[in-house]
């Protein structure tokens, strides 16, 4: 995103240091950076949702201090001996770790949203475009088993460029594995909410991200299987404005609701209140009805 000189509406804004004003990449308007940050990295002028890091997303959406990370002992390896020129896959991973502060592209753990305990996964687009390799696939599967063991709903914030080419066919096979994990949580009768963020594409959309019981999306997020450039190249056409955006996929019937980031937390809480395993049992048995009031399920067990 481009920095703009100290100018807004043609007026000089002296005294404000460089970087406090920014030009919105979407609407080109000059906006006050702290205001964008305050607004969960959504442009206050046009509503453009900037990409955010996985830890940042957790901070913005989960109850403070509720996140307990899992799966930190899984380490990515280089099964194919992949290298591009001088850079080996291990070098590339190291670079991604420096850029993102993560060990791979999926952060997993337990957290709470307005008191509702969930198993949560957040993908990190700063880590090799959140591509899916062996570790990501395995972590997703373990996250599902954690959710089942603790009998809590699963919420995953997807973002991905697709499968990780550096792991070749092993990366492709993670699609099968993670789709089976979704089957597992389906069988356990626990809800799985998939939130598609910018961009969700390729093998991740075509496996666990596309299989949510409830599929939500952030406004304007790119959501598609084949990349726009690939389609343009194959068909030799210019694709229409808005093609493969969240709004387009909503119109096509693949998304339950588009939810603004600033409204995501209360929305998820409402959803979790409706879908919590406690409320399901309460509907079918009078014994549990009292236990499952509108209070978060943690309230009576803690």
């Amino acid at each position, binding site marked *: 995103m481009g920095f703009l000189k100290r100018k807004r509406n043609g007026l000089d804004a002296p005294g404000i240091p460089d970087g406090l004003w920014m030009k919105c990449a979407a609407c080109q308007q000059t906006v006050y950076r702290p205001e964008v940050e305050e607004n969960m990295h959504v442009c206050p002028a046009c509503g453009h949702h900037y990409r955010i890091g996985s830890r940042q997303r957790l901070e913005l959406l989960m109850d403070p201090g509720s996140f307990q990370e899992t799966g930190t002992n899984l380490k990515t390896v280089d099964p194919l001996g992949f290298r591009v020129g001088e850079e080996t896959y291990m070098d590339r991973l190291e670079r991604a770790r420096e850029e993102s502060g993560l060990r791979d592209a999926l952060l997993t753990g337990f957290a709470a949203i307005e008191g509702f305990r969930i198993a949560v996964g957040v993908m990190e687009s700063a880590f090799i475009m959140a591509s899916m390799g062996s570790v990501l696939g395995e972590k997703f599967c373990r996250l599902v088993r954690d959710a089942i063991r603790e009998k809590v709903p699963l919420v995953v914030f997807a973002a991905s460029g697709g499968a990780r*080419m550096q792991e070749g*066919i092993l990366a492709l096979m993670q699609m099968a594995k993670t789709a089976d994990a979704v089957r597992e949580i389906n069988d356990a009768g626990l809800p799985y909410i998939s939130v598609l963020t910018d961009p969700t594409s390729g093998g991740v959309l075509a496996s*666990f991200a596309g299989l949510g019981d409830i599929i939500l999306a952030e406004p304007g997020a790119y959501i598609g299987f084949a990349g726009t450039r690939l389609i343009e190249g194959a068909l030799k056409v210019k694709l229409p404005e808005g093609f493969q955006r969240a709004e387009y996929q909503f119109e096509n019937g693949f998304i339950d609701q588009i939810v603004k980031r600033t409204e995501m937390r209360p929305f998820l809480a409402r959803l979790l209140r409706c879908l919590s395993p406690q409320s399901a049992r309460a509907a079918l048995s009078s014994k549990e009805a009292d236990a499952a009031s509108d209070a978060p399920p943690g309230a009576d067990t803690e």
Partner: protein
Amino acid sequence: MAETILPFERSIYDLIEAAGRAETVEERAALLKQSEAERLRVYANLTPWERVQLARHPRRPRMLDYTNRILEDFIELHGDRVIGDDPAMVCGIGRFRGRTIFIAGQQKGVSTEEKVSRNFGMAHPWGYRKAQRVFRLAERLGHPVVTFVDTPAAHPGIEAEQRGQGFAIAESLRLCADLRVPILAVVLSEGGSGGALAIAFADRVCMFQYAVYMICPPERCAEILWRDVEKKELAAAALKVTAQDLMDLGAIDAILPEPPGGAQYDPAGAAEVLASEIDRFLEACRQGAYSVEKRREKFRRIGHWLEESL
């Protein structure tokens, strides 16, 4: 049909052409013999990129060549019941050695006309949904499923996106993770990305010897990682796409042998190899060798990672 000669096959055809111009019978026989030796030499030393080219050879037998040879009867089933019929994905009920099997697979096409009408074996969402319908039917009626993978990719296009290509493939995978009848998948020539895997989440996955199975076309990998489509040979080698590579990585269960030069030199022989494989599979089914739990477990184990003690 015009003979398609791949660049690395040139030396073989030079000898065959020379034999055609030979002045004596002896000379001709000697040159033909030499061409055979050259053929063996060439095919014993193929680079990964040459194998990709070979897997895409237009003369390789297609799914329907095989089903015509090995099935006693085949009744095609059309349509996904919602959008329409996808000619790139052929589904149906077959009779094999007195038993019923349900079939799904991509048909790339043989003639130019057929290739176009079948979209070069690149299925649309309704093709995958047709396959799902047939899988469910097989399950309900208690028959095993055999799939034939032969596709460069799921179709990248406007309507494909509109109808949820990614969602359709995801559904196929989840369905195959839960199907209560055995599935055999055979990669005939080219297995390309999620479009291939969507019908290859199987109890037993086989590849023909000269088939390739890959996460994405080497050209595309080269474009993205090397930022140069001409680095496709490097990409083909790096991606590990051959049948032996996939065996070594634990991603497939068996390799089906082909004659030197590939199945197109002996389609009847290749069909015989495939028939024996299906026969063994059905025998193993009868012995109760497969279960949905084992299928899940097999795929669950695929992947390499390091687990550090905390």
